[in-house]
């Protein structure tokens, strides 16, 4: 049966909440990326290599929910399979991001070390990054635990909020490409001792 011919189904409350959570997840990471831009340009704190790699991992983690939302309009895979794949992407990206941020925290663990960059609300950005990756892991793990009852139902097309969320994420990834290219240049060395 064609996707567009499917009868609209009334989603259960957990499925609707999960659908909202997926959007909030992406919007949250978009907010973090915008905050990173503010720290970089507003406060003049240039990122190091490890900071940029953590930013990459955060984008990669956001692509998990993007997968789930994008494939909700119908693929050969089942909704449960798409949910598992999406959060699988997030879990793997978070573990890598967690490793990178832990490495950067450990580089400044010695007493008297001022840390790298400007502290925001008392913590350095790498510590915030560590906390955020933990939260992403917790959300992903909890959702996978209840995946059978949380898998989104197939939709004929995405709503405007979904499209706007995906467009915002896409724009921020593009902005990162432009910023990294023009601020660090094609071959300019980054701060190598973060």
């Amino acid at each position, binding site marked *: 049966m064609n996707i567009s011919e499917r009868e609209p189904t009334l989603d259960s409350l957990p499925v609707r909440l999960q659908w909202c959570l997926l959007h909030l997840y992406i919007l949250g990471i978009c907010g973090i990326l915008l905050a990173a831009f503010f720290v970089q340009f507003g406060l003049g704190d240039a990122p190091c*290599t*490890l900071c*940029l*790699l953590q930013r*990459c*991992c955060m*984008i*990669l983690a956001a*692509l998990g929910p*993007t*997968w789930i939302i*994008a*494939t909700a*309009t119908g*693929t*050969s*895979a089942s909704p449960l399979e798409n949910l598992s794949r999406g959060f699988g*992407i997030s879990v*793997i*990206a978070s573990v*890598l991001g967690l*490793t*990178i941020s832990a*490495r950067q925290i*450990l*580089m400044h*663990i*010695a007493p008297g*070390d001022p840390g790298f960059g400007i502290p925001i609300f008392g913590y350095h950005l790498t510590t915030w990054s560590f906390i955020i990756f933990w939260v992403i892991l917790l959300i992903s793990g909890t959702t996978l635990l209840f995946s059978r009852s949380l898998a989104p139902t197939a939709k004929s097309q995405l709503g405007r909020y979904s499209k706007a969320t*995906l467009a915002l*994420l*896409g724009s921020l*990834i*593009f902005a*990162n*490409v432009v910023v*990294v*290219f023009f601020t*660090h240049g*094609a*071959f300019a060395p*980054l701060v*190598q*001792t973060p």
Partner: protein
Amino acid sequence: MIECGIFILLLLLFLAIVRQFSMFSIGLFILCLGFIALRFIASIDSVPPISL
């Protein structure tokens, strides 16, 4: 250059996911992950300022 390349790959991955190219997306995801991991490993050439 590597960081810029990784961000370009991430943008391609985003577009592939949105266009629902499943297998291509999985391949790009593994490629992104590999490049980030390799760049991270390559950055571990400096000794942390802690002497045990």
